């Protein structure tokens, strides 16, 4: 007797979010839990964005510095290297140099820089602020205006600071990253607040603030599983794709940074760092991640191959 499989029939579907203009990338639109192709379609692959800073990263470990070399000094060259040499289809710019303690670059300087980056990149862009709310409320609207028509993904906004940036994205046709502190209720609440300002749901992406492998990964993992289950069951205010900033979390960890001498018996630092970033991403793919922001080109290659395998059916 043929067995009757345990298939789920979901009523909800994840929103499609489009990033970029000419070479636009779409994410989302999953109709089932991750990679269960027999249960529902997933027309878009999860994508990886290369993380690029507008300033020389002071505390990146050797594994990352040697992977990029000289271009770390020049964000435009850095972006170009990602696109032409590593084949990046999506780049995530972090505007660190605007931070009052990290250079305090002016709004005009930042806006000019993102324009230059846009021209050099030729691929869709994700734009992250410097982390200082007051300053981000100045630079991100300026970036939104400078990149008008480019359909970027801009953020992150939080429950306490979303109005200015949401209004700017709304005006200039960008999508927005809504960040919540590993909390499904706040994630939903923030999506409602942003929607209430008139932002279409198809232009919101959830940033669940992930932790690295070994550093609380399981918290965001379960929040994402819960949010995805709710979305597939019809909750429209959780039906947004996820973005996971994996690179910034993994490369802070001891496991990704410490030399072999410091961690006797744990293996060479380079492999350890790469696998730490790749495995953190792999875990979040299983929880429903749509966009992964990563740093090491080798780790990115590995994750892309993993995505190919998972999508092959």
């Amino acid at each position, binding site marked *: 007797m*043929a*067995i*009757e*499989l*345990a298939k789920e029939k979901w009523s909800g579907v994840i929103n499609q979010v489009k990033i970029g203009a000419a070479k636009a990338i779409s994410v989302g639109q999953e109709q089932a*839990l991750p*990679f*269960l*192709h*027999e249960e529902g379609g997933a027309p878009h692959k999860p994508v990886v964005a290369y993380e690029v800073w507008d300033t020389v990263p002071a*505390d990146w470990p050797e594994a990352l510095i040697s992977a990029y070399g000289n271009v770390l000094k020049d964000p435009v060259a850095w972006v170009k290297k990602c696109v032409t040499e590593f084949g990046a289809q999506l780049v995530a710019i972090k505007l660190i140099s605007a931070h009052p303690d990290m250079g305090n670059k002016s709004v005009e300087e930042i806006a000019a820089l993102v324009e230059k980056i846009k021209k050099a990149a030729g691929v869709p862009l994700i734009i992250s602020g410097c982390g200082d709310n007051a300053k981000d409320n100045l630079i991100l609207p300026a970036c939104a205006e400078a990149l008008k028509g480019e359909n970027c993904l801009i953020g992150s906004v939080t429950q306490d600071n979303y109005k200015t940036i949401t209004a700017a994205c709304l005006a200039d046709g960008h999508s927005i990253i809504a960040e919540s502190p590993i909390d499904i209720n706040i994630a939903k609440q923030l999506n409602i607040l942003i929607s209430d300002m008139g932002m279409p749901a198809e232009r919101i992406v959830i940033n669940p603030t992930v932790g690295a*492998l*070994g*550093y*609380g*990964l*399981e918290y965001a*993992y*379960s929040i994402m*599983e*819960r949010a995805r*289950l709710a979305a597939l069951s019809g909750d429209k205010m959780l039906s947004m794709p996820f973005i996971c900033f994996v690179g910034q979390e993994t490369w*802070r960890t*001891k*496991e990704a940074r*410490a030399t072999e001498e*410091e961690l006797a*018996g*744990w*293996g*060479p630092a380079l*492999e*350890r760092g*790469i*696998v*730490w970033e*790749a*495995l953190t991403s*792999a*875990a979040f*793919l*299983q*929880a429903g991640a749509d966009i992964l922001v990563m740093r090491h080109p*080798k780790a990115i290659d*590995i*994750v892309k*191959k*993993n995505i190919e*395998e*998972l*999508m*092959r*059916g």
Partner: protein
Amino acid sequence: MALSGLDIYKLLPKTNCRECGFPTCLAFAMQLAKKAVPLDKCPYLSKEAKLVLEESSLAPIRLVVIGKDKKIELGNETVLFRHEDKFYHPAAIGFIIDDNSSDKEIDVKISKINRLKFERVGQALEANLAAIRQTSDKKRFLDVVKKVSAATQLELVLISSDLQAQKEALGLIGARKPLLHPQSAQNIADFAKLALEYKTSLVVASPSLEEISNLTKDLKKQGLEDLVLDTASKSLAKKIWDLTQIRRLALKKKDRSFGYPTLVIVGEKDPYLQVVEAADYIAKYASIVLLEGAEPWQALSLLTLRQNIYSDPQKPLQIEPKLYPIGQADEKSPVLVTTNFSLSYYTVLGEVEASKTPSYIMSVNTEGMSVLTAWAAEKFTPEKIASSLEEFGVKDKVGHKRIIIPGYVAVMSGDLEEKSGWQVVVGPKEASGIPSFLKNLK
């Protein structure tokens, strides 16, 4: 499926004869529903009632124990998603040794596997299994079985479709109760006899879920229930589909023929990609994951992922609240205050160690909450920190009266100084700022 007390009551004799030690059949039924008493306390149960009750008290996924010394417990899971309860029996991670490797290669690999022990956040992480896979003739297989079993304490898996080879291997090491993996369903009845004879467990391998279901039903009739399911080599997405189906069929459809732990052999050869493939299986329900790569960085990352996925979402990992000396801490060493949420503590610890500044870390009892959560829940308050300073006798350990608190709770500084009588210095918000903070601390 769990029956309610009333469901059970309907199956009892309803004579209230009290022989079970309870005043009424209903009282006994209520205790049975809680699994607080054994079924056989009632001598008057009908055969049919007994059958129904026994079935219902069985776990939907059988607990299978692998090996003899370490007794690795697998299966007996109750949910599809860890937030619904938790995942109970961490996936066993094992490393494959092919018998066509040279003796020297095998020696190197076993010693590598034996060293795969790590400590993270206060927990010991260890590899669980060594799997010997036959690709050569019987004699070579048996030689390698002898060699590996003598060289490791890990529990063993024997991967071979050669019935005679498996039989003779069991003759050698049957007492270790290795898991038998015949790689296909061929000769399964003979393999089952072997497993029964040596009281060990057997892998039921077939690419078809339907065949697996039929086989486990037959084997159960033969009396063999210590089974592990493997749906053979397929694409990664199909494997995830199979693993998900097996878990769902057992839990949601209550199909006992799928109520067993599962096993996967990682097919990928690339050193990184095989770790990622193994990670996908750990996340998606596999009870045993076997792979070839046994480098420390490969094992460490997988063991850490397992630790994360199998941690209890209801109970954050805690450490004992006390004053911890780090390095050669003395009376001049700085005192850093954090919570007893193990992730907070171990993150601070990692950074203090990296700074190479001998220090004390005072872990305050916040019932396992992190700094911000504990602060919001009033478990990490000036009063609490002041009383911890007293309780742990910090003033007898250091010659100064200065403590460092996490940057996120800077607002409590004044209040804390008043309540404790200690000078309060605000440290960085993120632990990663600790080394440079300690360097600049005068």
